[in-house]
């Protein structure tokens, strides 16, 4: 009950926010915030399989490049290329996942990181479709949507983009949360906690790891597709390791114990740098200090604050 209230609140906030905030600067922040939420959410759902991915940017990049090329070279509509680029990303993720998801701990991190660098090298080397190190620019905005000739949504201002990414974010959130709360999510938990035991009770490790990985990468690819058409310019540098690290930091700061964690983390860490803007040179120092303090004193992330407060209260009551 409380959860559905929360969800309703989230939907209302997401609906109303773009109506109130019209300043393009702040709309841009909301868009990037929602984009970061998707990145952090999908990274966390790979983490739920017990796999620490260090190359999440690769999948965002594949989605972005696939979508840009499909629209610009094949002349497909954005509304086709958006889901298809997600599917392409998921297929490539399966191809990389089949050999590497058997690896545990750091070894998986290293291979995914290498995969990220390999994709970037491919974009640079093969100038023909990928545009080399200068990347692809002039990626068109999504085609207008016509509702039975009644009214038309044209992607002329950032507000339309804002609604689009909010819808993508909500879809990602609902799908990942429903999976997590189902028997499938239960199997993910089992695999993460003890893969030997999970295997001994009949859970096919590779089947479930591949499933979880492909679903997460599908949404990462969709987010990448949105990114390409929103910024209208992508290059190998758009999808470097910093993006993967950001995804990890957002999820870790928010807390990976719940689906809410990455959302809280990504939203706050997207907004904080703006307030720090006046600090100028010291911006990064404050940002780093903030991260350090959270990792030191709230290792389970920002979402663990209510539980902590309750615990402290209980202790006082007992005394």
């Amino acid at each position, binding site marked *: 009950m409380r959860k559905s209230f929360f969800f309703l609140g989230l939907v209302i906030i997401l609906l109303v926010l773009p109506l109130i905030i019209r300043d393009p600067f702040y709309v841009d922040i909301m868009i990037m915030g929602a984009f970061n939420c998707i990145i952090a959410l999908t990274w966390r759902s790979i983490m739920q399989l017990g796999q620490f991915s260090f190359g999440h940017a690769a999948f965002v990049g594949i989605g972005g490049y696939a979508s840009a090329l499909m629209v610009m070279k094949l002349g497909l509509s954005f509304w086709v290329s958006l889901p298809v680029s997600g599917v392409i990303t998921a297929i490539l993720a399966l191809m990389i996942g089949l050999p590497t998801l058997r690896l545990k701990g750091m070894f998986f991190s290293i291979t995914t990181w290498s995969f990220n660098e390999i994709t970037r090298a491919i974009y640079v080397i093969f100038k023909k479709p990928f545009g080399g190190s200068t990347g692809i620019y002039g990626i068109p905005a999504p085609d207008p949507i016509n509702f039975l000739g009644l009214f038309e949504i044209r992607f002329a201002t950032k507000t339309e983009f804002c609604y689009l990414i909010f819808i993508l974010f909500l879809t990602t959130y609902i799908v990942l949360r*429903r999976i997590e709360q189902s*028997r499938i999510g*239960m199997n993910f938990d089992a695999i993460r*906690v*003890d893969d030997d035991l999970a295997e001994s009770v*009949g859970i096919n490790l590779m089947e479930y790891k591949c499933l979880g990985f492909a679903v997460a990468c599908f949404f990462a690819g969709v987010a990448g597709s949105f990114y390409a058409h929103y910024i209208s310019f992508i290059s190998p540098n758009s999808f470097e390791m910093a993006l993967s690290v950001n995804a990890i930091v957002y999820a870790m700061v928010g807390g990976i114990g719940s689906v809410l964690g990455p959302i809280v983390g990504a939203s706050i860490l997207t907004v904080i740098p703006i307030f720090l803007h006046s600090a100028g040179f010291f911006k990064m120092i404050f940002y780093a200090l903030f991260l350090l303090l959270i990792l030191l004193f709230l290792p389970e992330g920002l979402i663990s604050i209510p539980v902590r407060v309750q615990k402290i209260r209980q202790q006082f009551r007992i005394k």
Partner: protein
Amino acid sequence: MLLLETKKLTKQFGGLTAVNSLELQINQGEIVGLIGPNGAGKTTVFNLITGFFLPSNGTILLSGERVEGLRPHNIAQKGCTRTFQPTKLFSGYSVIRNVLMAQHLYSRIHFWDPFVPSRSLRDRENLLLKEVESILDLVGISEQRNEQAQDLPHGHQQALGIAIALATHPKLLLLDEPATGMNPEESFIMMERIRKIANTGITIVIIEHDMKVIMNLCSRIIAINYGKKIAEGTPKQIRENPEVIQAYLGKNDVSA
């Protein structure tokens, strides 16, 4: 009826032969003990049967079907589950949740389940939950159902380990030292528990160092040393077997 049979089962780790041409026959409904000194290769035998290790040589037949080379999850599907030593649990989750997580084989998951909530799905979940209750009753930890697995006392953790294995509806249950580190009272409870499980028709193979448990429970005992079978027979026969005594106590030096 023969449930499990191994023929010339061999496992080599580099130059070391952990299991050497082992021939096992386990009949339906038996409780068989597998004993041997430390490092005799008992747990390796379990790892080979359940597919965690690939045998270097030999065959494993489960209900007449060759299973060597299959992955552990396939073998669980064919009706053979094991417990681990030290006990493995899904720590961080409640006792009930632990058993629920182990029900995978009987939960009949479809990938669309998360998105199509249906009445039959809810009924199925209720049925599975009832089954968890009955398993917890069987192993005697239904009072601890809401406790966190890692907070349970040692004896109850062992019981939960068995409950997890039972959730897969095994025909053959391999218990790896179920009574280890228990006081006499606890190991008595464990014996009762194993007897109750055997009464439900499940065939059990036990590795155990506590001879009291083995001698009381097992109808047949197989003793191995250096990966080779050195004796097989009733508890009485094993107790009097000179080779077993020698393996456990060393050579009887008469001149001393």
